[in-house]
C-alpha cells in the first residue's frame, strides 16, 4: 500500500502544483479580470472551463452509481442536466452576455431597476452557492482522506487552503485557466477505467458502443432472478415525477449563477453560442460514459459477486465493505450471497472500478486526482460567484458605490478567503441538512432565477414589482412543495420534493406576468435595452431606430 500512497500523493501533488502555477501566472490585476476574466476567454477553452465548473465531485463519483441503482429512472438526471444547456445557450446566455454586467444579480437588478430584486438575487446566489460548495469541500476531504490515508478533516483543510489561495489570487481569470487544466485531468481520469473495463468485458475499446451487449445479458439475468428490470421505465416513481425532475434539472441548470457567469467571460454573443456548444460536448463525454460505467459495474456485481459464497468474494470487495459503501450481509444464512442481499452505495461504482478491473496503482492515483479536480473546479467557480455577490452586488452596488478599483479588488479577494474558510469549517462536520439543500438547489434555482432571467430577456413589459413578486412566489411555492411532499406526505401526480421546480417555475412566471401587467410598464430606456438584446453587438437599438455600429 506504500507504493499506492506515493503514486497517489505525487499525482495529486503534481496537479495541485499545476493549478497554483496557472493561477500565479494569470493573476487578476483589475476588477474586469477578477469577475469576468477580462472577457477574452476563447470559446473552446470556455467550454472546458464550463465543463469543469459544472461537473462536481458528485457528478464524478456519484452519477454512474445513481444511474446504476435507479435504472431507466436515473436517466432523468442525464437528460435534465445536459438539456439545461439547450435552454441556457438558446434562451439566456448570449443575451445576458450582450447586456454586459458582472453578475447575475446585477442583471436582475439593472434590468428590473430594482434594488430589492438585486439583493434578493444576491442573497439567493450566496445561499445556493454556499451549500453547494460545502458538498464539494467535504467531498474533496473524503477523496484526499481515503486515498492518502489521512484524516478526512486534514483532507478537507488541504482543499480549503488550496482553493482560497488560488481563487483569491487569480479571481475569475485564474479560475478559468485552472478549470481548463482541471477539465483535462478529470476527463482523462474518468475515461481510462471505463475504456479498460469495456476492453475486458467486451473486447471493444469503445464503451459507448459496447455496453449494449452487456445490457442485453443483464436483462436476461434480471428476468431469471425476478428482480425489477433495469431497463423498465418508471419503476422508482411515477412518469410525472420523471418529467418534473427532468424539467427542474433543466431549468435549474439554466438558472445557476456560477454557470451563467462563465458566459460573461467571452467576448461576444457569437462566442457565447460557441461556448455553449463546446461546453456540452465536453460535458457529454462524461455523461455519455456514466451509463456505461453503470452497466459494466452492475454486470460485474451480478455475475462475479452475487451468487458466490461469502468466503469466496473477489478481493476488492473487502476494502469497500470496510468503508460501509458495500454491504454483503447474508440475510437467509445459506452462505451464498444473493443479488438481493447486496446493498451498494452510489459512490462505489466509479471509485471501485480501477480495483475491479485490476488497473493498477497508477490508475487509482489518477482517479483520485480526477475526483479532486472535479471538486476543486466546482468549488472555485462557486467561490467566485459568492465573492462577486458579496463584493460587487452587495458592497459596491449597494453599500459603497464610490469604492475605488483597488478597494473593490481587495474586498473581492477577502470575501473569497472568508467564504472558503467558513464553508470549509462547516464542511468538517456537515449537518445532514446540507445534502438535502444541495438536492434542492436545482428546484430553488428553477423556481427563482430561471423565471426572472427568462422573462427579463424575452418580455420587455416585465417590470420590477413583477420580478420581486415572481422571485418571492417562486421561492415560497418551491419551498412549500418541498416541505409538503417531504414531510407532509402531500404530492400531486406522484411528484416528490426533487421535482418541486416545476411548480415553482410555473407560479413564478405567472406571478411575474400578472404583477407586471397590473403595475406601470418599465421606462422607455429599459424597454429599448431589452429590444436591443435581439441583435448582435454590432447593432444598437435606440429611440425606435436600429443602428449598425462601425467596426473598431
Amino acid at each position, binding site marked *: 500500500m506504500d507504493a499506492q500512497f506515493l503514486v497517489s500523493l505525487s499525482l495529486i501533488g503534481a496537479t495541485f502544483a499545476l493549478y497554483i502555477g496557472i493561477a500565479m501566472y494569470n493573476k487578476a490585476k483589475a476588477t474586469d479580470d477578477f469577475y469576468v476574466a477580462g472577457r477574452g476567454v476563447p470559446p473552446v477553452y470556455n467550454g472546458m472551463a464550463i465543463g469543469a465548473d459544472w461537473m462536481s465531485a458528485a457528478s464524478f463519483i456519484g452519477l454512474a452509481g445513481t444511474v446504476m441503482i435507479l435504472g431507466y429512472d436515473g436517466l432523468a438526471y*442525464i*437528460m435534465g442536466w445536459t438539456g439545461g444547456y439547450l435552454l441556457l445557450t438558446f434562451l439566456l446566455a448570449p443575451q445576458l452576455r450582450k447586456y454586459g454586467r458582472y453578475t447575475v444579480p446585477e442583471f436582475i437588478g439593472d434590468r428590473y431597476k430594482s434594488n430589492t430584486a438585486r439583493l434578493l438575487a444576491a442573497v439567493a446566489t450566496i445561499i445556493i452557492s454556499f451549500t453547494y460548495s460545502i458538498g464539494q469541500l467535504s467531498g474533496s476531504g473524503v477523496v484526499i482522506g481515503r486515498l492518502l490515508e489521512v484524516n478526512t478533516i486534514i483532507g478537507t483543510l488541504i482543499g480549503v487552503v488550496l482553493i482560497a489561495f488560488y481563487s483569491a489570487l487569480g479571481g475569475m481569470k485564474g479560475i478559468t485557466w485552472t478549470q481548463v487544466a482541471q477539465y483535462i485531468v478529470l476527463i482523462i481520469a474518468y475515461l481510462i477505467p471505463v475504456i479498460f473495463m469495456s476492453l475486458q468485458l467486451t473486447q471493444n475499446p469503445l464503451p459507448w458502443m459496447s455496453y449494449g*451487449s452487456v445490457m442485453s445479458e443483464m436483462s436476461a439475468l434480471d428476468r431469471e432472478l425476478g428482480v425489477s428490470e433495469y431497463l423498465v421505465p418508471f419503476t422508482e416513481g411515477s412518469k410525472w415525477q420523471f418529467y418534473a425532475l427532468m424539467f427542474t434539472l433543466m431549468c435549474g441548470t439554466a438558472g445557476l449563477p456560477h454557470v451563467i457567469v462563465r458566459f460573461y467571460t467571452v467576448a461576444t454573443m*457569437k462566442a457565447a453560442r460557441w461556448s455553449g456548444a463546446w461546453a456540452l460536448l465536453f460535458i457529454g463525454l462524461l455523461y455519455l460514459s456514466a451509463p456505461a460505467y453503470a452497466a459494466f459495474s452492475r454486470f460485474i456485481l451480478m455475475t462475479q459477486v452475487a451468487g458466490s459464497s461469502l468466503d469466496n468474494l473477489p478481493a476488492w470487495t473487502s476494502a469497500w465493505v470496510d468503508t460501509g459503501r458495500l454491504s454483503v450481509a447474508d440475510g437467509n444464512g445459506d452462505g451464498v450471497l444473493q443479488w438481493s442481499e447486496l446493498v451498494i452505495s452510489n459512490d462505489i461504482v466509479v471509485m471501485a472500478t480501477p480495483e475491479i478491473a485490476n488497473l493498477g496503482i497508477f490508475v487509482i492515483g489518477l482517479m483520485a486526482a480526477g475526483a479532486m479536480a472535479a471538486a476543486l473546479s466546482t468549488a472555485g467557480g462557486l467561490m467566485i460567484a459568492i465573492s462577486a455577490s458579496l463584493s460587487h452586488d452587495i458592497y459596491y452596488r449597494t453599500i459603497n458605490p464610490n469604492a475605488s478599483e483597488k478597494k473593490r479588488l481587495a474586498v473581492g479577494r477577502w470575501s473569497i478567503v472568508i467564504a472558503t474558510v467558513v464553508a470549509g469549517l462547516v464542511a468538517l462536520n456537515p449537518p445532514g441538512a446540507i445534502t438535502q439543500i444541495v438536492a434542492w438547489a436545482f428546484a430553488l434555482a428553477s423556481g427563482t432565477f430561471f423565471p426572472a432571467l427568462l422573462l427579463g430577456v424575452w418580455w420587455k413589459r416585465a417590470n420590477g414589482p413583477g420580478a420581486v413578486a415572481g422571485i418571492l412566489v417562486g421561492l415560497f411555492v418551491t419551498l412549500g412543495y418541498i416541505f409538503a411532499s417531504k414531510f407532509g406526505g402531500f404530492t400531486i401526480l406522484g411528484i416528490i420534493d426533487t421535482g418541486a421546480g416545476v411548480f415553482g417555475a410555473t407560479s413564478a412566471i405567472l406571478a411575474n406576468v400578472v404583477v407586471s401587467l397590473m403595475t406601470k410598464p418599465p421606462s422607455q430606456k429599459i424597454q429599448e435595452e431589452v429590444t436591443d438584446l435581439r441583435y448582435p453587438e454590432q447593432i444598437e437599438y435606440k429611440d425606435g431606430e*436600429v443602428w449598425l455600429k462601425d467596426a473598431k
Partner: protein
Amino acid sequence: MRKIDRAHADAYFRVRTTMIAIYLFIGLSVSFGVAFFARELSHFTVMGVPFHYYMGSQGAIVTFIILLFVNAKVSDVIDEKFGISPKQLEKSKQEDRAVNQ
C-alpha cells in the same frame, strides 16, 4: 453608425427566433417526447439497447450537442447573410477608407 431599415432588423430577429423554436422543439421531443412513450418505444433496439433507454442514455445527449453546434454555425451564417458579421463590418470599413483616399 449607419441606420438600418427596421424591417431588415425585424426579419433578422424573426429568423433567429424561428430557428431557436425549431431547435427547442427537436430537443424537447428527443427527451420529454421519448420519455412519454417510453413503454411503447421499448420494443425495438439500437445497438442492443431498447430504444427508450438508448435515447435517454445517449441519443438525447448526442442530439443536444448536435443542435448546439448547428445553432452556433447557422447563427454565424445568418449574421453574415444579414451583413452584420464582424468580418463584413471590417471589410465595409476598409472599402470606405479606400473610397476616401
